[in-house]
């Protein structure tokens, strides 16, 4: 009984520990082993490698995250065990059982009982390791589940040839600390250090990047034929820079860093030219934006193409003028008190807009903008909208220009409907809304930052309405 010990970078101790707990011979292996460590600390990798090096140790894997709730988890345990055994020992006929029947723990026990009994013909005792990769990632996890599995071996007859051993890979230390009284053997995978991350990533990614088709194409299209070491240099530099730039953002998360690298590699390669291929510094400078943002956004490309037609943007993505004023009016409705409306919005005070016109308002304890938006009826919205919507100069007598205050016509309602479907203005009751009913109250669903930006785009000084409102 020899156990091969694979080499995993920075995980020597853990591999050793695993190899002392995991053994072909059931008498040497504890029934439950826990492996704990944060995301991408190499748990899966290590365990996979271990079993790869030791094919004589029987094992099967389960991903609880895919199984969502515990009923399918049990069914899968049942199915996995029976199918693994069936594959391992095709000669032994075993009566067919329906794994789907294992809907509860006692049914699982019953199922396992039936299955394992047919393997009593085996010559020697064997252990079958069931690995739960990410046990605490089961969607509908509850605290009862783990103890049940821990005790499972007690419910099966001890003289079985096939002995089940469970390995739980767990992320959360808090989850584990609940079960500290069970004294489970636990192998901890500590987080990698910065340098370790760098080393692992360099080892993993350099070869991948050197061989990447895009780099080759680019270099060829530049008419260059550099040595292999140049490629290596480029890839290495890139990886190091990315790690430096984003380490503070991702922490020692190898997967996240790797993803970031992959997503930016293409544009990095694009900026390679004949001049900077040998000069890391100028290559770095030529695409400095790559390192300043994560680029995790869907909209970046769009903005670039919108730049061309600035005046038409209104028709494409932005809100229309009416919508903007409606939204501003909604914001005012939600954050100003109705009893001052007439003072603030009546035409008379409009002449001396700003602070002077509503100096006598009672000051509030807190800035109203920090509070929840208050509800308002549609009627108030429309009257404030009418008050703030700009009226065009009288000189132009055509009917195409609004010479009188904007009234709530179908167009206005259309825009309101759009704001509602964009969820910028919402109703107090979310379901079965009767939009015209007087009972319905509305509120704005936009933060101050956006509303100021929007107001400034139509030259409306919304800050003025909130100045001097509180101490």
């Amino acid at each position, binding site marked *: 009984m020899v156990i091969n010990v694979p080499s995993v970078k920075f995980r020597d101790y853990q591999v050793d520990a695993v190899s002392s707990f995991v053994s072909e011979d059931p008498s040497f292996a504890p029934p439950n082993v826990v492996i704990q460590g944060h995301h991408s600390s190499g748990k899966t990798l290590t365990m996979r490698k271990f079993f790869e090096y030791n094919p004589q140790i029987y094992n099967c894997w389960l991903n609880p*995250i*895919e199984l969502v709730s515990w009923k399918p988890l049990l069914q899968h345990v049942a199915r996995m065990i029976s199918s693994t055994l069936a594959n391992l020992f095709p000669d032994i006929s075993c009566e067919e059982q*329906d794994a*789907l029947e294992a809907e509860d723990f006692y049914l699982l026990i019953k199922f396992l009982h039936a299955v394992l009994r047919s393997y009593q013909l085996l010559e020697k005792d064997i252990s079958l390791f069931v690995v739960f990769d990410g046990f605490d990632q089961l969607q509908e996890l509850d605290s009862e589940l783990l103890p049940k599995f821990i005790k499972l071996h007690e419910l099966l007859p001890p003289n079985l040839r096939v002995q089940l051993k469970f390995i739980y890979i767990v992320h959360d230390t808090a989850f584990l600390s609940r079960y500290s009284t069970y004294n489970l053997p636990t192998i901890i995978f500590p987080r990698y250090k910065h340098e370790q991350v760098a080393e692992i990533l360099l080892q993993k990614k350099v070869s991948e990047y050197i061989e990447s088709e895009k780099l080759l194409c680019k270099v060829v299209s530049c008419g260059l034929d550099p040595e292999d070491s140049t490629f290596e240099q480029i890839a290495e530099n890139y990886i190091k820079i990315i790690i430096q730039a984003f380490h503070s953002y991702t922490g020692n998360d190898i997967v996240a860093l790797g993803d970031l690298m992959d997503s930016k590699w293409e544009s990095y390669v694009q900026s390679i030219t004949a001049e900077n291929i040998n000069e890391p510094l100028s290559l770095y400078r030529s695409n400095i934006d790559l390192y300043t943002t994560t680029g995790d956004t869907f909209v970046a490309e769009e903005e670039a193409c919108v730049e061309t037609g600035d005046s038409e943007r209104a028709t494409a993505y932005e809100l229309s003028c009416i*919508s903007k004023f409606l939204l501003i009016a909604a914001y005012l409705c939600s954050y100003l008190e109705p009893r001052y409306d007439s003072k603030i919005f009546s035409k008379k005070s409009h002449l001396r807009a700003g602070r002077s016109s509503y100096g006598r308002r009672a000051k509030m304890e807190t800035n109203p903008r920090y509070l929840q938006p208050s509800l308002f009826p549609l*009627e108030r919205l429309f009257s404030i909208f009418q008050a703030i919507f700009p009226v065009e100069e009288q000189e132009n007598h055509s009917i195409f220009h609004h010479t009188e205050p904007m*009234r*709530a016509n179908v*167009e206005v309602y259309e*825009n309101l409907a759009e704001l509602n479907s964009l969820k910028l203005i919402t109703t107090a009751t979310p379901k079965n809304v009767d939009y015209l009913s007087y009972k319905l109250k509305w509120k704005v669903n936009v933060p101050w930052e956006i509303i100021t930006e929007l107001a400034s785009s139509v030259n409306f000084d919304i800050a003025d309405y909130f100045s001097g409102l509180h101490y």
Partner: protein
Amino acid sequence: MSLNEFAEAQKTHYTVCPKVKRRRISCEKGIDPFVKLLAGKESMQMVNKRWVLYHQLHSQFHAQVEEIVHRVSIDMYREISSVLSKDTSKRTSPSFNCLFLLGSDSTTTIELHEQNSKTMQAIIDLTPKESPNVRMMLRRSMFKLLSATEAPLRVKTDEKESFAPEGDMGELPRTSPLGISYDLSLVQNFRKLFGKRLKLIFNFKDVDSFNSQVLDDFIILLKSALNYKDVEICLVLNINTNLSNIQKNLRQSTIRLLKKDFTVIDLSHNKGHKYANQTFQSFLNTVDGKLNLSAEFIKFILDKMSNNATHNLQLLIKILDYSLMSYFFQNPFSVFIDPTNVVNFDENYLPPLLKCPTFMTFVEGMVHAHAPSEEIMALLDNKNSTLEEFFTEFLVRENPINDHLKLVVDVLENQLGVFNYNLIDLYYHMLTGKLHEFLQRWPECQQFEDILKFEPVDIIFQELFTLDNSKELFSQSLFPFLRTNLENNLINSDRMLPPAKRLPGIKDPFEAEFNSSVDLPLCQLFSLYREASSIINLYDFFLAFKETLPRSEIANFVNYSVENKESDLRHEDREKLSILLKEKGLDNLLDKMMLVWFVQSISEFQHMGLLKTQSNKSYEVVEKCIWRGL
């Protein structure tokens, strides 16, 4: 006090019927919807011709519009299915094929390229309602996958069985060892179970209403399916807000995952100007050489289109339609768009002609040029029909603007490769003589400057053939005030109901009369509502309502319906009604019906925002909802 007076004083209410003088409608109406113009002096024949001509142009325009709209959807489908069927073999790392449909109302059906025997393509629709948590989402989608897979399979085996009764049942999946459960193992073992590759297309409808946490978790769950062999996963997300809205609710790592391979298709037709340009161009083509469009009208279109971000193609069509209709409706000269109609020109058309500003400037020009005064006088008096001939001569003059527009478009598209211009805006700039300004956006136009130069010209009598609206028809009718519109419709129920059909062979006198004499209860009540003061006592209101309904006609109608087997009532209803009638008597029944109508109408008024109760407890009085000044 006499007994009569006393009885009168004890009454709960009085009914006063004021006599209303009927105005007589003077205008004789033809069969066409159009009416006589030129102060009623237009001949019936010309009215008819005007109508026919309008109809012709209208249907011509709409035939083209339909084609354009049809093309819109075809283009869309093609785009979507080409994204979904793109080749994924060259991918370096496993990733979702992710498609964002912006501005989608989630009704877009996804069409797939033809299925082949090696790959099973399954579309799985998920709505927010069906997706309260990851477990349900997974179960639902796996169930849908299974039923989608088994449907064609079953048909196939049926076919086979009919050909060869033995059938090779070995081909059917042997489900027992693997078992089918509604989780990802189904996807994982798909190849083993059904012997086909699997292409899964998740169609998330109305993504904005999903619980983003659940959606995120579900995507992460699907992520592990990416590593399965022979499985390809596409995610289609229907979004009706915008991308950044979705993005802010998802985890960064999920966004990175989706971003590996993603496509955005904007389904709202206003992205770019392609379809609006086509529509406008087809309108110009329809009226080419016949009508001009005034600059202000175009400006109006531009303004309104920018106010309506989501449906502005529909809006454009509506405005153009409306302008054409209103032009033909109100302009007697529209009939001369077809020059053959000039034979019917008579002296009634002369006075408006003389008032044409372009004509007056022309006459002024003649005066300045010292033209012989007889000539001028002859023109003004239409001596020997000189004015008529003059008019006819200018009828066939064409405005060069459309030709020039075509030239500009040609240069822009074919020489410079510019496509993202707004044709309507371009037209507007041409009309106002600012074409140069418009073209400055594309500096490369400079080389064509001499070709592109354009000055708008005035043609005499052009105002008679210009789409413009000096009357407030447009803003008023296209964008009516909502409240006013609602009220108008309530006053005239004909505005919302289909016209009552007066069948010639109608047998029973009641039905025909009933339709014309009794309005909808809602409308009936509204006319009372208009006269009521702002606080309304419900009981009084009910009495008034009851009183104004034509009781005897309704009674006749009820009797008729109960007796006559051919009425619209169903059998059981008639039974019930006749029992009620026997037990309670007609009067009682009528009172009940009216009460029901009344209560219905009142609550409908509340939902329409016409009435409100003063407090939640008392239902004695209701108050009018009046939006002052709005």
